[in-house]
């Protein structure tokens, strides 16, 4: 092979590599664009709440005391759910949420690291001792959804799950204290 032909071949290979690098760059830009576009238009973001809480006393007073757990509708109409994840159950075990409304879910744990997801939704977070895990979502399936612990937390881990009951607006009626419980079925 002559020297010129070898040079031409090298140039061609370099051209192919540069073209490939350009294609990969376009793909990376497209994926990042999709993430930004989704965040801006569909309001889908990674949960990023950093809030400290003392795991030794969270059950004694404050928002995670027993009487404050479950679903509460505030004076402004905002729906907040407070749940304690503990070995090996969620308290309460059934959570009522309205269909098609923004719901703020707040979780805390007094013992070890737990995790949870709600089937059929993008809700998925870890619950770490010392921190409040907060996720908001909007439920668009009016049915009972499973909420299992997905972070191994001990021998009873597989029994740790709760139900999220998505109620239509007609059935989601807060009491005088603004609290909503699961419908008995």
């Amino acid at each position, binding site marked *: *092979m002559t020297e010129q032909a070898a040079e031409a071949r090298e140039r061609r290979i370099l051209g*192919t590599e540069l073209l490939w690098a350009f294609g990969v760059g376009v793909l990376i830009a497209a994926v990042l664009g*999709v993430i930004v576009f989704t965040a801006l238009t*569909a*309001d*889908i*973001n990674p949960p990023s709440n950093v809030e400290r809480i003392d795991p030794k006393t969270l059950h004694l007073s404050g928002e995670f005391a027993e009487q404050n757990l479950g679903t509460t509708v505030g004076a402004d109409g905002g729906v907040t759910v407070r749940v304690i994840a503990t070995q090996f159950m969620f308290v309460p075990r059934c959570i009522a949420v309205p269909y098609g409304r923004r719901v703020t879910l707040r979780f805390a744990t007094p013992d070890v690291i737990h995790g949870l997801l709600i089937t059929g939704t993008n809700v998925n977070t870890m619950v770490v001792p010392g921190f409040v895990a907060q996720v908001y979502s*909007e439920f668009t399936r009016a049915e009972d959804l499973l909420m299992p612990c997905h972070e191994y937390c001990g021998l009873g881990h597989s029994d740790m799950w709760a139900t999220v009951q998505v109620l239509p607006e007609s059935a989601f009626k807060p009491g005088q204290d603004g609290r909503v419980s699961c419908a008995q079925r």
Partner: protein
Amino acid sequence: MWSSRGGKPMISANQTSASDVPPEVPDQVDEAALAEVMRVVPLGAGVVAGTAVALLVLGYLAIYLLVFLPRGPVG
């Protein structure tokens, strides 16, 4: 030298082993054919890699559009 049962050497000093490296013989290379192969090979690699990446992107888009977005907002 290894000997046979009768004490006679199996290989005499003037014999060559079959495992000897054969003398180098230049390949009969057709320069034109080689140039043609070298022209086509990067294109083939590009097609294979491009197909693999295209399948990956299609899978990503399918999960994004059919699974992720219908699951609703989160943050």
